[in-house]
């Protein structure tokens, strides 16, 4: 009775150690890649490249030269968190938003990537509540809309989660 348990725990431990080791080894490279990716998205939002060295995130916000600031947040999507990045101009006007990371269903929920669909571009011109959700991926759409609304007015109580 004990032997199957012992071997499965042993194999689990070995797997865990291996994963932990590789995680420690790859973490610096992964962090660098992610922050480079976020800055690239920021360049797209702001329109022209700026020098990100010396800029530090204060919580969820970073101020860029020229009165523009970036904000990031995470909302619960259909399959894990959706990480959002938004740029605001003078007077708190939303310049645009991008998704910097997500685990939504491939082919169905990945329209929130600008490479795949222009859907995210609408937030630059339309108030989030007026952006149409994508059928078949309502939870993903509503999550992104909710996230952007919260970034626009953090004081407002969070919008009710989508209930089918």
């Amino acid at each position, binding site marked *: 009775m004990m032997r199957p348990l012992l071997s499965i725990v042993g194999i689990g431990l070995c*797997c865990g150690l291996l994963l932990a080791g590789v995680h420690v080894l790859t973490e610096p490279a*992964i962090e660098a890649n992610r922050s480079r*990716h976020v800055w690239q998205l920021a360049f797209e939002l702001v329109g022209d490249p700026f020098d990100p060295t010396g800029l530090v995130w204060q919580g969820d916000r970073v101020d860029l030269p020229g009165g523009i600031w970036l904000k990031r947040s995470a909302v619960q999507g259909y399959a894990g968190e959706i990480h959002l990045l938004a740029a605001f101009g003078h007077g708190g006007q939303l310049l645009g938003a991008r998704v910097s990371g997500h*685990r939504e269903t*491939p*082919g169905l929920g990945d329209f929130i990537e600008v490479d795949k669909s222009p859907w995210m571009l609408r937030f630059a011109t339309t108030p989030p509540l007026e952006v149409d959700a994508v059928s078949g991926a309502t939870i993903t759409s509503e999550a992104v809309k909710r996230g952007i609304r919260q970034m626009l007015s953090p004081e407002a109580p969070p919008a009710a989660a989508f209930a089918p």
Partner: protein
Amino acid sequence: MSGTFAEAAIRRNPAWIQLLGLCPLLAVSNSLVNAIGLALASGFVMVGSALAISTLRTWIPNRVRLPCFVLVIATFTTLSVLLLEAYAFELYLRVALFVQIIVSNCMILGRMEAFASRQPPWRACLDALGTAAGFAIALIALGGVREALGQGSLLAGMDHLFGPVAASWRIDLGLGNAPFLMALLPPGAFIIAGLLLGLGNGMRNRLSPKPSLNTDFDEHGKTNPDIRKAEG
């Protein structure tokens, strides 16, 4: 020795003969670069898990072998995601979601159960390499046809995989921008995969008189246990 490899790659091609692993195959094969990326990741998980399971096979009790296999396969899948994110970030952004579902690819679990858990590491490794090569052949064939028909190009975006040198590898086939858009969409994947499967079966029937779909049976009509185990 090369028999194990060829057997796994061609005669028992996981995608075209055993019809395993079709979900990632159809989902990712809309361009050559995605196809090659997934083939490499699947191959890494396949070979790593086969070596680990074959080495550990005497310590894995029969009753809990499936949880152990899943544990090992999940570990190697997570490793491949971590390595992709660290060293091939552009490709990670495009194929990461599909690499994560390698863990549930029955092609891999099937080979672990039917082969790696009963054979010494070097044979398990050859079989895993063969299966991975077979899967890669299927992925690349489908990816190539779909990219050519859907985008009118070949090898576009290879710089995501092989660095800036590969940016100039793109071949324009002169068919316009989107000659047959459906090839890129899921229905196109099914139709083209079916046509390629039929083509492969037809070619095999030409070459050898044995009916192709009866590879499950040996000449005495008995079911070959090795293949039966791999189903699922």
